[in-house]
């Protein structure tokens, strides 16, 4: 029954229990959850699927009507433990970050399309470009790349010292350029002028991604970005999460949840 990769990685509603909680930086909390079999997965008799870097979980947060999309920041295939790194951005994320260890959550997971890890091989190396909480999915991508013995180089920007997280972990995978309070893409373009770039995986605020495109486009550098948009269903049915994408006939909306969240930077609008 569950044989193809697609089925193995198909989303299911699951429950998870928070088993540890670490204060990672100002307003940023790292949660480790143990995935219990969702009621549907249990019915189907399937093991939960392994998420890939770039995919996300759509989490029902107590006290909020809609689910909240949060990137998979790590997943241990052996133990089935999921890592989420959450920034207190508003009501729902703050409530999630405030849950005590032992709390149980309902999540829909794994969703969305991953970063194209298989493409890294042909470039020989991957460059991580992250702004703030955008580092969350990229920590997972960097880890998986490094496990495959691919070279990883990272460029990360944070607003100020108190918001820095994940840098030591990134250093395990390769050199890191840390920019605090500045523009991370400036550092990136300096390095690009002396070194052949790898395949770029990026996530961060829209202005950073817009600047990244300006850096990549003239040099013909390939980059994939993970986008954010407000979501409803998270599975592609309600059409509320759309972002503008260039298409053969000009312009189209694509669903961040189901067509993304990872897109080739050359097709993204950034209006």
């Amino acid at each position: 029954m569950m044989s193809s990769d697609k089925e193995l990685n198909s989303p299911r509603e699951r429950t998870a229990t928070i088993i540890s909680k670490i204060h990672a930086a100002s307003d940023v909390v790292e949660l480790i959850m143990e995935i219990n079999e969702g009621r549907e997965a249990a019915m189907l008799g399937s093991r939960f699927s392994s998420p890939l870097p770039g995919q996300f979980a759509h989490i029902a947060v107590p006290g909020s009507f809609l689910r909240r999309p949060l990137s998979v920041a790590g997943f241990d295939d052996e133990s089935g433990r999921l890592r989420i790194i959450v920034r207190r951005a508003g009501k729902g994320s703050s409530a999630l970050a405030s849950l005590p260890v032992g709390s149980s959550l309902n999540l829909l997971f794994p969703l969305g399309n991953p970063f194209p890890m298989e493409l890294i091989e042909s470039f020989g190396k991957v460059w991580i470009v992250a702004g703030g909480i955008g580092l969350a999915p990229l920590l997972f991508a960097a880890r998986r790349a490094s496990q495959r013995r691919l070279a990883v180089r990272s460029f990360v920007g944070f607003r100020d010292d108190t918001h820095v997280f994940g840098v030591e972990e990134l250093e395990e995978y390769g050199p890191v350029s840390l920019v605090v309070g500045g523009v991370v893409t400036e550092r990136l373009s300096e390095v690009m002028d002396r070194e052949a770039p790898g395949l770029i995986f990026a996530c961060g605020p829209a202005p950073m991604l817009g600047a990244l495109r300006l850096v990549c486009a003239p040099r013909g550098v390939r980059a994939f970005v993970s986008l954010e948009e407000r979501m409803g269903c998270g599975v592609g049915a309600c059409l509320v999460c759309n972002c503008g994408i260039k298409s053969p006939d000009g312009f189209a909306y694509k669903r961040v949840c189901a067509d993304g969240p990872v897109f080739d930077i050359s097709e993204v609008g950034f209006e």
Partner: protein
Amino acid sequence: MSEKRFAAKDVLITDLCGVRLKNPLIAASGTFGFGREYDELYDISCWGAISVKGLTLHPRLGNPPSRIAESASGMLNSVGLQNPGVDVFIRDELPWLSARGLVVIANAAGSTEDEYTEVVRRLADSPADIIELNISCPNVKEGGLLFGTSPSCAGAITKAVRRVCRQPLMVKLSPNVSDIAGIARAVEDAGADAVSLINTLTGMLVDTRTRRPVLANVTGGLSGPAIKPVAIRMVRDVSSAVKVPVVGMGGISSGDDVAQFMIAGASAVMIGTANIVDPMAGPRILGEFERFLVEEKIDDLSTLVGSLKAK
């Protein structure tokens, strides 16, 4: 007697203007796409029927983001009828849905009388089982709602569409009116075979930091449990004003909610926003409703529909 007698599946069989539904639960338009996404999560043939995303004559891009905002017990959306157009639906989506044995309700939208009639004409020879005329979308400027807010306009568009429509015609009513029963009567007189209600309530939210509306479209449609009491009241008003079947919706998220709408007069119900917050809402609510029937020893749905007692 054993519970089995009451839980027997044929208790759930519902006749909706001559179309046989295996149960009275219908996925509401716009929250279920064309069914493909949810079919990856569970077998969607458990639904009595599926009302697909609103279809227009030509493809529509929809409104710019943000298109969704959360509010207490509900959400605002301003999708703006994004859809691939009726022809693409008939070619690429409908065959798959029909092959699954699903009862398909084609939700037709437009901005002029000509557009509505042309959409319905193109569906006339298709395997779509029921046409749901959406004259109540609050999210497109020209469209829909204009026709849905006065009895004479609603009657006129229904009459025009009726002429080309080969399937049972259900008209979807807007709650953004002062007399929904009057509009229901007008569309019944014009030849509607059923009415469905309610579409979303127009609303807006403000971001206090930027002092801008949260939705790029400024206003959007409110759905979810927040609108349920309004919807139940309107289902009661409309079902006592017309003879055609009433399909009720608005915030349904449990088996008990289904029963409330049916007691208030709905022959069938649609479930929308519940799918968005709980992807398994369809099978879950069906199970809850079946348990309700067993507990209440109901073996004939017609004894439930419109069974509201005086206070």
